[in-house]
C-alpha cells in the first residue's frame, strides 16, 4: 500500500495550526490567571502532541523545540519558577517560532534560523530577560483583577477531533453549485409538466416531493458551510493583548455570541475589517489606565465583540468603553469638506457616519479626530462588498460601538425579479420598498425623471434606456421603489416577476468594470439573468453627466410649481 505522505503532512499542518491557536488562547488566559492549572495543562498537552507528531514524522528540530517549550511549562507546573508576563511573551513568541518551523520543515527547509535557536535557549534557561526590544523598565501591570476571558471558555474550545472531518471548501462549493443546478432543472421540469395540459396528478406530486427534498438538501449544504464566529473572535485575543501591552493600556476582550454561525466566505472577508476596527478602538478609543481612573472609570478598558442573529442577517458589533467620538471635530471636518451644510439637522449618529466617507480621514485630520477615521472607508467598502451595512453609535466619554449587519450567506439571496423587454433582472429583495405603476404623464420621458410619490419627489431611472436596450416600451410600466443609504429612488421596468430565492453566480473578470451589476443567476428557463447592484447603480446614475438629467429635473420643478399653484388654488 502506498502512503500519501503529502496528505499526511497537510493534515499535520492543519492540526498544528489548530493546536497552536488553542495554546495561544490558553497562554493569554494563563497570564490573567497564573494559578489556573487547567490552562497550564491544556498548553502542556498541546505542546506534547506537537512534539510527538513531529517526532514520528521525522522533524527532530520541531520536536526539540517543543521539548524545550514543555520544559519551561514543567517548571511552572512544579512551581520552581513563577508565571510572569515576560515569560508568557516568550512562550507566545515561541509559538510563532513553532509555526514558522513547522511550515519550513514541511517545505523541506534545511536550516534552523538563528533566532529560533536563541529562543530555544531562552526556553531551556527559563530566562525571559526582556526578549521584547521595546520593553520599558517599568513592568507592565498584569490585569490580574480582570481575567482576559472567562474561565471555561478555553476548555470548551478543545474540540474532540474524532467526530469531525476536514473537507476541501472547493468540494462544498461544488456541492452547492450542483444543488442550485438541480433546483433550476426542476423548475424547467415543472414548467414542461404543466404546459403539456394533461396534468398527471401523481407525477406532479412526486415532483413536488423532489422539490421539497432538494430544497432541504440545499439548506443542509448551506449549513455545512456555516461556521461559528467564536474561533475568529478568539484570534483577536492575542492581538489585543500585544497591542495593549505595547501601549501600556489595560484592555479586556469580551466576546459574546461565539456560537453564532455564518457562511465561511463571509468570515474570511470579515477578518480585515475586524482587525481594523479593533486596532482603532485600542489605539484611539480606550484611554490609558491613568486617564481612565481620572475619569472615574475602571482602569481596565473593555473591548466587546458581539455576534447575534437579527432576522435573516447577522449583526456583529465592535464596542469599546473609551473616549467616544468627538462630535465637534467631525462636524468641523464635515463642514470643511462640504459634506455637512447646517450643523443643526444632523443627529449624532448620522454625523458619526461621516467617518466612513472616503477622503474624510486625511492624515492631518486623523490626529485631530484622535485618529478615529483611519481607513474606516475601507471598512465600509469591504462590508458593502459583502452586501452588508455599517453604522456607528458613540457617547462622548463612554465609548463607541460599530455595528455591522451582514447577510447570512453570499451564495444565495432573496431576489426580486423584474422584466425589461426580453431581459430579466434580479434585485436584492431587501432593497425593494414597494412597487407602483408608472404614471401616464411620465411615459414619454427619457432615461431619468422624477415622479410624485405621495407628495414626495421620487427620482427614477428607466432601466431600458439606462442599459441601452432597444426593445420598444410597453404601454404600461412599473416603478420599483428602492432605498439606498436612506435615499429613495425608483427603477422603471416593464414587468414585475416577484420574489424568488436566487443562487448567485459570479460574472468573472471580463465584467469587473461594469457598474451596477452584482453578479448573475440562472433562471428556470435556463437563461442567465443579471443581478443588479442597487447602490452601485444609483451611484453610477448620480455621477452621470448632468446635462442628461438636467432637463427632466428642470421640467419636474416646473411641474411641481404648477401643482403647488393648483393645490393652493384648490384650498382657496
Amino acid at each position, binding site marked *: 500500500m502506498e502512503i500519501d505522505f503529502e496528505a499526511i503532512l497537510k493534515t499535520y499542518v492543519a492540526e498544528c495550526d489548530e493546536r497552536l491557536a488553542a495554546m495561544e488562547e490558553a497562554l493569554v488566559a494563563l497570564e490573567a490567571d497564573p494559578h489556573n492549572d487547567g490552562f497550564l495543562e491544556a498548553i502542556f498537552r498541546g505542546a506534547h502532541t506537537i512534539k510527538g507528531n513531529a517526532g514520528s514524522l521525522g522533524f527532530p528540530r520541531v520536536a526539540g523545540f517543543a521539548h524545550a517549550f514543555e520544559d519551561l511549562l514543567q517548571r511552572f507546573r512544579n512551581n520552581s519558577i513563577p508565571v510572569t508576563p515576560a515569560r508568557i511573551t516568550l512562550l507566545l513568541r515561541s509559538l510563532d517560532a513553532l509555526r514558522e518551523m513547522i511550515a519550513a520543515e514541511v517545505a523541506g527547509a534545511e536550516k534552523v534560523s538563528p533566532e529560533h535557536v536563541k529562543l530555544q535557549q531562552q526556553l531551556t534557561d527559563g530566562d525571559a530577560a526582556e526578549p521584547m526590544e521595546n520593553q520599558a523598565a517599568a513592568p507592565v501591570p498584569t490585569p490580574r483583577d480582570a481575567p482576559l476571558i472567562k474561565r471555561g471558555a478555553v476548555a470548551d474550545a478543545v474540540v474532540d477531533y474524532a467526530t469531525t472531518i476536514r473537507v476541501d471548501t472547493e468540494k462544498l462549493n461544488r456541492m452547492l453549485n450542483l444543488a*442550485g443546478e438541480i433546483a433550476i432543472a426542476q423548475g424547467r421540469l415543472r414548467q414542461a409538466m404543466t404546459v403539456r395540459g394533461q396534468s398527471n396528478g401523481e407525477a406532479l406530486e412526486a415532483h413536488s416531493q423532489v422539490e421539497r427534498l432538494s430544497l432541504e438538501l440545499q439548506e443542509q449544504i448551506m449549513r455545512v458551510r456555516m461556521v461559528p464566529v467564536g474561533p475568529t473572535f478568539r484570534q483577536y485575543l492575542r492581538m489585543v493583548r500585544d497591542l495593549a501591552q505595547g501601549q501600556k493600556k489595560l484592555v479586556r476582550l469580551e466576546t459574546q455570541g461565539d456560537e453564532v454561525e455564518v457562511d465561511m466566505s463571509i468570515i474570511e472577508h470579515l477578518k480585515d475589517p475586524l482587525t481594523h476596527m479593533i486596532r482603532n478602538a485600542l489605539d484611539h478609543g480606550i484611554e490609558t489606565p491613568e486617564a481612565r481612573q481620572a475619569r472615574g472609570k475602571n482602569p481596565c478598558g473593555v473591548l466587546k465583540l458581539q455576534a447575534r442573529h437579527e432576522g435573516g442577517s447577522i449583526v456583529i458589533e465592535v464596542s469599546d468603553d473609551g473616549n467616544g467620538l468627538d462630535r465637534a471635530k467631525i462636524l468641523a471636518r464635515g463642514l470643511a469638506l462640504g459634506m455637512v451644510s447646517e450643523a443643526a439637522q444632523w443627529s449624532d449618529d448620522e454625523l458619526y457616519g461621516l467617518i466612513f466617507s472616503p477622503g474624510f480621514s486625511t492624515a492631518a485630520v486623523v490626529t485631530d479626530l484622535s485618529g478615529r477615521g483611519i481607513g474606516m472607508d475601507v471598512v465600509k467598502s469591504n462590508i458593502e462588498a459583502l452586501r452588508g451595512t455599517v453604522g456607528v453609535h458613540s457617547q462622548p466619554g463612554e465609548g463607541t460601538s460599530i455595528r455591522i449587519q451582514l447577510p447570512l450567506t453570499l451564495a444565495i439571496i432573496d431576489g426580486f425579479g423584474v422584466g425589461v423587454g426580453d431581459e430579466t433582472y434580479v434585485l436584492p429583495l431587501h432593497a425593494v420598498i414597494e412597487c407602483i405603476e408608472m404614471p401616464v404623464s411620465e411615459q414619454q420621458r427619457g432615461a431619468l425623471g422624477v415622479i410624485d410619490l405621495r407628495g414626495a419627489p421620487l427620482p427614477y431611472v428607466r432601466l431600458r434606456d439606462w*442599459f441601452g436596450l432597444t426593445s420598444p416600451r410597453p404601454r404600461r410600466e412599473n416603478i420599483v421603489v428602492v432605498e439606498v443609504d436612506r435615499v429613495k429612488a425608483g427603477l422603471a421596468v416593464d414587468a414585475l416577476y416577484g420574489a424568488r430565492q436566487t443562487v448567485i453566480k459570479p*460574472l468573472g473578470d471580463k*465584467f469587473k468594470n461594469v457598474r451596477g451589476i452584482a453578479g448573475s443567476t*440562472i433562471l428556470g428557463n435556463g437563461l*442567465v439573468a443579471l443581478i443588479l447592484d442597487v447602490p452601485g447603480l444609483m451611484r453610477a446614475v448620480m455621477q452621470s453627466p448632468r446635462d442628461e438629467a438636467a432637463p427632466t429635473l428642470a421640467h419636474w420643478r416646473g411641474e411641481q410649481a404648477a401643482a403647488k399653484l393648483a393645490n393652493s388654488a384648490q384650498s382657496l
Partner: protein
Amino acid sequence: MMETESALEQIQYLTFQLAGEEYAIGILQVKEIIPYVTLTMVPQTPASIRGVINLRGAVVPVIDIALKLGLSPNPVTARSCIVIVETTSAAGSLIMGIIADSVSQVIDLPPQEISATPPFGTQIQIDFLRGIGRSGQKFVLVLDIDKVLGSDDDAETRTNSSGVKVTDGKARLKQSNSNHEIASA
C-alpha cells in the same frame, strides 16, 4: 513555456467561417461547439462582448470575435455557432465563447505547413495571427486566440478613442439590432 510546448505539439486545428474568410484555432483550446443560443446582454461592456450564456451552470461570456478583429459581423443564422474556448493569460485560464458564422472542419496542420504571416495584405491585425496554413485549395488564417481574446478593447475603439463606455454599449446594441433586422428580413 507551456504555451510554446502545446503550440509545438499542436497539429490539429478547428476551422470556421467568419465574415467570408476561413480561420483556424488549435483544437487543444477548443472545449466544445454549441448552437447559437439566446444571450443575456451585459450593459456597459465593449461592443465585442455580446453577452453571457449558461453553460451547464457556469456563466460564460460570449465574444463577437469578428468585432474584436475589426471585421464587420454577419447576421446570426441557423448555422451560427458558439465555439467554447479556453484561453490562457497572465491572470490564468478563462473559458469563453466566440461566435462563428459556421464551423467547417478539423484539419491537420503540422507546424512546417504554417507559413509566417505576410507583413500586409491580411484583413486583420498581424499580431492576432500565428500564421497562414492551407486547407485544400484555400488559405486558412491561424488565429492566436489568447492574444485576440486577451486584448481588452475592440478594433473599432482602438481607432476611435472618444468612445465612452455607455456609448460603446449603445453602439453594440444598435449593431446587434441591425443584425437582427437583416436576419429576419
